[in-house]
């Protein structure tokens, strides 16, 4: 019942693990797939290894967390080993065929179109899709949202990657812009197969009043969790009207009701991250279970019927 397609790739359900959460190792991502996710997005990686920021990298706030992990990653060469170990292909006994209904999406970052292209070109056969992180709000100068806040830079990065890879490409956008439509259209024009919205909000800051300093080592970080959901819903709703390509909704999902809201707003699939800290890994199976019940109650036969229902 939850089976669906995203950019031509089959998925057993619309729940994906969001980038930056439990995505550092294949073992961790396999555990998330076993827990019921239809797919995983890896932690973002680039050409070279990057240590990221020192702790504290995460601070809890009302309605979620702010984080500034700082794009820590082992670099593409070393991360290829992890990618190769993700259990995305399940062999079904009857057919003996690979049944890739659990998918792996590689989140990649860089500072130039060439760097994105270099990373993308190394991993095409190890994953099902690529998600371009041009939206991290706490990245180094010239990375992340520095690209995704500019339509021309967005076009150049998407275009460079699309010219060289055969797997579908999602472009993950930052909400921290004046006009997201212009940027999303730019990504679509450059050939992006889908749009992921939204990356974490802000950045924001939390000061510990007893310590008298900002908690995060980086001082500021991106806000995620239930608090940002209404903003994400609005972006999905608006972009659904403007775009011809599918939208992957992300931002504050914690319950099946949240998933329904994102689908109704116009998401074809959704990503879940921060809420794992409240609900544990059981969140995936719980939502799938409740989603089926909801669909039966309301008479929906497929996820597809629900996409954009609120328009």
């Amino acid at each position: 019942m939850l089976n669906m397609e995203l950019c031509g790739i089959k998925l057993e359900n619309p729940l994906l693990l969001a980038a930056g959460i439990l995505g550092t190792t294949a073992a961790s991502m396999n555990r998330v797939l076993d827990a019921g996710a239809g797919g995983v997005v890896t932690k973002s990686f680039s050409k070279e290894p990057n240590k990221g920021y020192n702790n504290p990298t995460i601070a809890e706030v009302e309605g979620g967390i702010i984080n500034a992990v700082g794009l820590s990653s082992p670099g593409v060469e070393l991360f290829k080993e992890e990618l190769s170990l993700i259990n995305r292909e399940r062999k079904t006994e009857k057919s003996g065929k690979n049944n890739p209904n659990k998918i792996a999406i590689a989140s990649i970052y860089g500072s130039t179109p060439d760097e994105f292209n270099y990373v993308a070109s190394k991993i095409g056969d190890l994953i099902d899709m690529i998600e371009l992180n041009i939206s991290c709000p706490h990245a180094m100068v010239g990375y992340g949202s520095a690209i995704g806040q500019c339509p021309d830079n967005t076009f150049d990065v998407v275009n460079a990657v699309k010219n060289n890879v055969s797997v579908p490409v999602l472009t993950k956008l930052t909400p921290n812009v004046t006009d997201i439509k212009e940027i999303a259209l730019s990504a679509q024009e450059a050939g992006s197969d889908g749009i992921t919205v939204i990356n974490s909000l802000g950045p924001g800051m939390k000061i510990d009043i007893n310590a008298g300093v900002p908690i995060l080592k980086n001082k500021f970080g991106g806000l995620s969790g239930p608090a940002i959901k209404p903003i994400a819903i609005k972006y999905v709703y608006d972009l659904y009207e403007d775009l011809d390509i599918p939208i992957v909704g992300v931002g504050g999902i914690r319950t099946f009701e949240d998933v329904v809201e994102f689908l109704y707003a116009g998401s074809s699939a959704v990503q879940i991250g921060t809420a794992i800290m409240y609900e544990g890994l059981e969140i995936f199976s719980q939502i799938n279970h409740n989603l089926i019940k909801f669909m039966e109650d309301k008479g929906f036969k497929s996820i597809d019927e629900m996409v954009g229902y609120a328009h």
Partner: protein
Amino acid sequence: MKNEYKILEIKDIIINTQTIKTFIFDWKMEKDEIPNPGQFMMIWNFNGESDEKPMSVSKIDLDNEEIGITVKNIGEFTNNLHSLKIGDELGIRGPYGNHFKLNGDNIIAIGGGVGMAPLRSFVEHAKSENKNVDVVVASVTQCELLFEEDFKKLGVNVFTSTDDGTCGYKGFATHRTIDLLKSRNYDMAIVCGPEIMMKGIFNILEDNNIPGQYSMERYMKCAIGICGQCCVDNTGWRVCIEGPIFSSEEIKQITEFGNYHRNGAGIK
């Protein structure tokens, strides 16, 4: 919010060895969560160069409402902690992770170096439940033996071993344990120390059919189960949530145990 810091003054500092100090804090047991032996706290040092690391709780004093963390000076972060004085402040959040389970009557606790820290609070608890406890206190050399006197005061049998033979048995904790098992029987073991030592102890305890509980350490960032930094191969267990204490049966499934770990960038 559960993960908010408590900013606490250092109430006392106990100098345990030349390189190890124990920091004591007031801890409102009723209001704050009572830590269990084996759990850890995230210690945020915002004095100077800000950083935060996980530390085992070595002392849980319910009567005086105090907790202690025991820190060996091995790098920049711990060196900065060691330079702090009584009255200086640290941020503490936790307790986090699972804990040692008391499920035996004749217990052996085996620790190496600063790995004695989580064992100390457990041994104290086990003695209060009138269990028989033997402790192997191991270190490289005599002046680095940790909590030997504390354990003796608790009335447990203490078996020291030093690599260089300056105190007690000359040799590794593994040799000391093999020797002890010739004459004594145990129905549970708790182990904490360098992973290479724990792997050696694991093999010995397996050979002797003694169920063990092992305290593992990995580079940590969030400590709340979402960043993925401390996940172990091939199970994907998070040391901050499913750990830091793993049973013998679980250790068998952790393929990286005693073999490798990942740094802050995720590099093995």
